[in-house]
């Protein structure tokens, strides 16, 4: 402990800004010797502080059959620690140990019974799960131990104290590339964030495991209640061949396969100081923040670097097409093209392209006398921006009998952008809208905090300034060039929603 603190005194301190431009943000960075990164953006007039901790961990590390397990870990990390969430840790600790022993038995039994529980049906019930009497017997033992643990549980404790001390905007999010926990606190109470999050990083206890499993089932049902969910999942599956960025947040059978051991392995490997970034924005400066962070995180040791994502999406070789028949979902046609991740020089152009494309498509639909709506986005599953390849999606929702015609208009509009680029007015509108979007982000400390932390996860936080400046410099020629490079048949997936 003492050694660590001494070493921290020699930690790297740098004051950097996001380049010399209108997008300058006075961010201060400190990287502790144990690898923890602290970013502070002081806003002296603020009476509150937006505090977030980002972990370079998300759904992209999951394996098929365990999809959604990263998101599930986030839920488990709300269940408390050994200092919060129990009225008697001494009594609970051996029971937790017992649960992991039973979990190991369960995994071994499932492996042993592999032929009895393997999936055989093609059109099976989505809630199907294979089991045997031996597996169920172990599950019953697990439930019995869980009931004993519930006698000393203090649910809600982790979040209770944030609220008691004026915390608002309490959320946690897990996407394909990151997990974050966040809160907005009065500036005098930032220490509470560090105490709670350091505890969460080092002392999480998996309580209420099987009850929480059902919350994911509920959330999945909520997703499936939206008519678009199964369609989007099919589209993502056609756009990407191998990269997990295109995988959904878990199918129903996956939720029943999560084990404590699998989740604990994630927790141990990824929730380490050298894989984490704390971002503070508001009424706090680096001089105040640094010793507080040292107090709560300084004693933690650097751990092995977590496993990188190895997947590389192969170069698209052929046009792909999805026909989705639905009696309820509004008919539409969609064109998706794979695009590069943040950090690639072409990526900022697509933000401008979205605005230009939407406006041009609206005009061309109107000229053709087709009523409908246009949406252009870069969403893959739930996220719109990645440090890996994603897709740009042009969606026209049109009357049932206009789907084929609308596809022609969509493709010819993209050809127009390739051959002539946008007009100067289209480009000016796009740039104005992008500028306004960014200003709305900076107004809200929490949104700005997210942008900074997210760029750190995708590449490194300094990329944000480069990205914003490059985006502001996009001209007609850049749009034309990027359209010509990416809007080619081999990189195209067409989706049509039609009536059965």
């Amino acid at each position, binding site marked *: 402990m003492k050694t660590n603190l001494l070493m921290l005194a020699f930690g790297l301190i740098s004051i950097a800004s996001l380049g010399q431009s209108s997008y300058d943000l006075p961010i201060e960075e400190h990287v502790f010797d144990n690898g923890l990164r602290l970013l502070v953006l002081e806003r002296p007039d603020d*009476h*509150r502080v937006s505090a977030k901790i980002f972990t370079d961990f998300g759904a992209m590390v999951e394996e098929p059959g365990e999809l959604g397990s990263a998101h599930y870990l986030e839920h488990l990390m*709300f*269940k408390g620690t*050994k*200092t919060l969430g129990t009225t008697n840790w001494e009594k609970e*600790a*051996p029971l*937790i*140990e017992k649960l*992991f022993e039973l979990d190991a038995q369960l995994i071994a039994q499932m492996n042993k019974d592999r032929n009895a529980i393997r999936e055989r049906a093609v059109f099976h019930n989505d809630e199907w799960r294979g089991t045997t009497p031996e597996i169920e017997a172990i599950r019953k033992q697990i439930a019995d131990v869980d009931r004993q643990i*519930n006698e000393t*549980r203090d*649910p*809600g*404790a982790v*979040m*209770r*104290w944030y*609220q*008691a*001390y*004026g*915390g*608002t905007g309490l959320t946690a999010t897990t996407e394909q590339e990151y997990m974050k926990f966040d809160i*907005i606190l*009065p500036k*005098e*109470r930032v*220490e509470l964030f560090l*105490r*709670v999050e*350091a505890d969460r990083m*080092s*002392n*999480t206890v998996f309580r*209420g495991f*099987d*009850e929480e*499993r059902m*919350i994911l*089932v*509920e959330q999945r*049902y*909520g997703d*499936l*209640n939206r008519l678009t969910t199964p369609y989007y999942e099919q589209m993502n599956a056609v756009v990407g061949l191998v990269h997990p960025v295109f995988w959904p947040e878990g199918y129903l059978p996956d939720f029943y396969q999560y084990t404590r051991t699998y989740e604990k392995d994630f927790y*141990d490997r990824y929730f380490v100081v050298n894989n984490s970034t704390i971002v503070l924005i508001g009424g706090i400066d680096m001089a105040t923040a640094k010793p507080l962070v040292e107090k709560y995180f300084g*004693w*933690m040791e650097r751990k092995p670097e977590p496993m990188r994502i190895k997947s590389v999406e192969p170069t698209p070789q052929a046009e792909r097409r999805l026909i989705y028949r639905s009696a309820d979902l509004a008919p539409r046609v969609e064109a998706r093209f794979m695009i590069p991740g943040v950090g690639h020089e072409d990526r900022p152009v697509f933000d401008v392209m979205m605005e230009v494309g939407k*406006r041009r498509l609206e005009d061309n639909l109107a000229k053709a006398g087709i009523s409908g709506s246009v949406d252009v986005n870069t969403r893959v599953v739930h996220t719109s921006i990645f440090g890996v390849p994603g897709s740009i999606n042009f969606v026209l929702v049109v009357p049932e009998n206009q789907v084929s015609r609308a596809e022609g208009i969509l493709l010819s509009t993209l050809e127009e952008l390739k051959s002539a680029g946008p007009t100067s007015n289209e480009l000016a*509108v796009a740039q*104005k809208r992008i*500028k*306004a979007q960014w*200003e*709305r982000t*900076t*107004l*809200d400390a929490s949104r700005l905090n997210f942008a900074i932390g997210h760029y750190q996860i995708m590449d490194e936080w300094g990329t944000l300034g480069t990205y914003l400046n490059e985006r502001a410099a996009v001209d007609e020629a850049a749009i034309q060039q990027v359209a010509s490079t990416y809007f080619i048949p081999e990189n195209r997936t067409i989706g049509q929603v039609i009536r059965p």
Partner: protein
Amino acid sequence: MKSILNYTIILLLLTLVACNSGGDTKESDASQDVFKAPREMGLLASQFTMPNPGDHRVELDNGLVAFVVTGDKASLVTIKAVIGAGYAYDKKGVAQSLKTILQSQPVCDMEAKEFSRYLYDNAFEYSVSQDEEMMTISLNALAEDYDKAMALFARIVIQPCINGQTSRMFKGYAGIPDSEYVKNGSLPKTVELLKQQLYGNHPFNAQVNAGEASAISTSDLKAFHQKYFSTGNMSVAVSGQISADQVKRDLATAFSGVSTAERQLASFDYVTSSKASIGHTTNKLQTWIVIGSLLPEISPEEWPALQVMNYIIGGGHFDTRLYKETRDLRGLTNDDSGFPEWKQTGPGFYTFRTYGRPEVADQLIDLTMTEINKIRDTKVTEEELFVAKGALADGVFQMWFENSHTTSATFAEHWVRYQSFDHLSKYPERVNAVTIDDVQAAAQKYLKPEEMVTLVVASPGQ
């Protein structure tokens, strides 16, 4: 030497084994002394003080009161008008018809599509909201477009496009039952169904039939606008990266034509409901449940005790009694929360909202009612009270003043409601004065199982 090395290796291995076996913690217990109980951390009191509304108040020569709050966090400006009249006011459907015009075609020299494109091209964020008692019009723009935004906004507020064509845009609001909404199901729609049920023929029921809608004339709309978009019934908030002096000059010019009138605060009957259960069907995977009743007259002084009570039982966060019982301990639902909606001029609306897979619906209803009865029959703990007070006085209250845009809007809304800031400035003090007995008294006064209606939207089989 060799034996010492062996001993060291064995000790190291034992330590590694100890660190990796069982339990859930990563480090040795020696480091755990930093994790004090939060109440023992010595966290400082928040020094936040509410901005002084008088520092931002501008009164025009015609009596219109505006609030100008500058801030340079972003190169944006927001102009907002708060009008003290909603859809419960005056002839049925007039306010909603005016809202439709304001949303779609508020200026006569632009058709609806042109207006939409104008907003898009200027990156303006424009919205019109309305409830029973209030209406808000808001325009957010880049600061560089302040002049253009102010000119458009003043035209919308002072001379909305009320004519024979626009007055026919509103076709009525039939409500939810038997519509596509119910077929598709959702919690907000279920809440709306219950609201219609509870309010019945009361003016707070938003439903307007086609006949009522077609009976709305241009003169009705103009009269409503003349009466309520007036000096005594409206306030304007301007905020963002602007010059306060410039804004004051512009307001004096742009809003000099606002009609002059005294505050027209309506008063509506207080009604109650009777215990009932109602079902609707949906074809979705989950069942939605809303349990609620109407509220009696509540003064601003009484409101904090109800908020504290609701915060404890179901205030929409991770540590409520309902959340713990239904979600955390049993895995039945993603959420089960309470929503008291206070109204200044008539009966408010208090609902408990939850949803889950069909097989747990009965359990969710039982657990919700159990917690409602429990907070009526027994006292909350000192810790629960401490948490709720902190959340409201140091959390919710401070967020109303998070930036110049929220601050100016807060001031304008309070001015229209009360023509003073007494209730606003005393809110933290009143929250902190709530006692354990006050919480129980609020539960007994505002949670009346004998008046609660349970509305379930479920699959036909259920």
